């Protein structure tokens, strides 16, 4: 089990660095075909218990050249809309207590949506939170994430 522990500032809640890359199967296929595997994208994620699937911005999807594997409906204030679904590899960089990159999921289904802020383009949703132990110490403005 890995563990990340770090402080956070302000009232926005814990944010932390993540690595987003192609899913393992696509990496294998690209390597076998002699293709170029794009490097993972280093981005800031926010824990979000309000979403049932982790979310990426369209900018990250474009940088990785993700190919959608479907779409799914979502209820919004403006009605039911469809969002793109993609597969990614999802990891944590060797920081804040990790001595090496931790791969949380080699094949994670995520939603790709517009409207995420540029400084936090990843939402770490309940699909991932349900697999880990998250402890937030609000008064101390720190959190620990065990996975």
């Amino acid at each position, binding site marked *: 089990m890995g563990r990340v522990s770090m402080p956070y500032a302000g009232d926005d809640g814990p944010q932390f660095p993540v690595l987003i890359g192609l899913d393992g199967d696509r990496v294998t*296929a690209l390597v076998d075909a002699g293709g170029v595997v794009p490097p993972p994208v280093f981005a800031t994620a926010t824990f979000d218990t*309000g*979403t049932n699937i982790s979310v990426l911005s369209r900018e990250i999807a474009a940088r990785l050249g993700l*190919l959608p*594997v*479907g779409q*799914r409906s*979502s209820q919004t204030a403006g009605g039911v809309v469809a969002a793109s679904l993609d597969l990614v590899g999802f990891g944590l960089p060797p920081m804040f207590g990790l001595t090496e990159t931790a791969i949380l999921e080699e094949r994670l*289904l995520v939603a790709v*949506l517009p409207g995420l802020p540029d400084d936090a383009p990843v939402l770490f949703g309940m699909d991932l939170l349900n697999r880990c132990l998250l402890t937030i110490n609000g008064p101390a403005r720190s959190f620990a994430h065990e996975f």
Partner: protein
Amino acid sequence: MAAHRVLHTKTTIPFRPLGSVIHYSELAPATTDSTLAEEWETFRRELPELLAKGFAGKHVLIVGSEIVVIADTFVEAVAEGRRRFPDRPIAVPLIAEWQPMIRPSGGIRWAA
């Protein structure tokens, strides 16, 4: 013995399971800017027949307007799709009366 009053003898309202789901009849049409608009419309059109044929719980691989394969799992369907169509988007939706939804987050500015 008191007589029991029968409130309903028959209902046409489908039972809604827990969780973020939507009845397939309420799936929204594809937007014009969607990469998978053709696949999504194919899925919406074909889903009632797929359910009637007993494929509920399986995943269907759709490319363009073609149903390519029906697989037991999402992973199997994606693998087959990528093997046959390595350079293009594919759709691998779940065959189900109640379709999974994305529960939106307050952190997303949907108007963008």
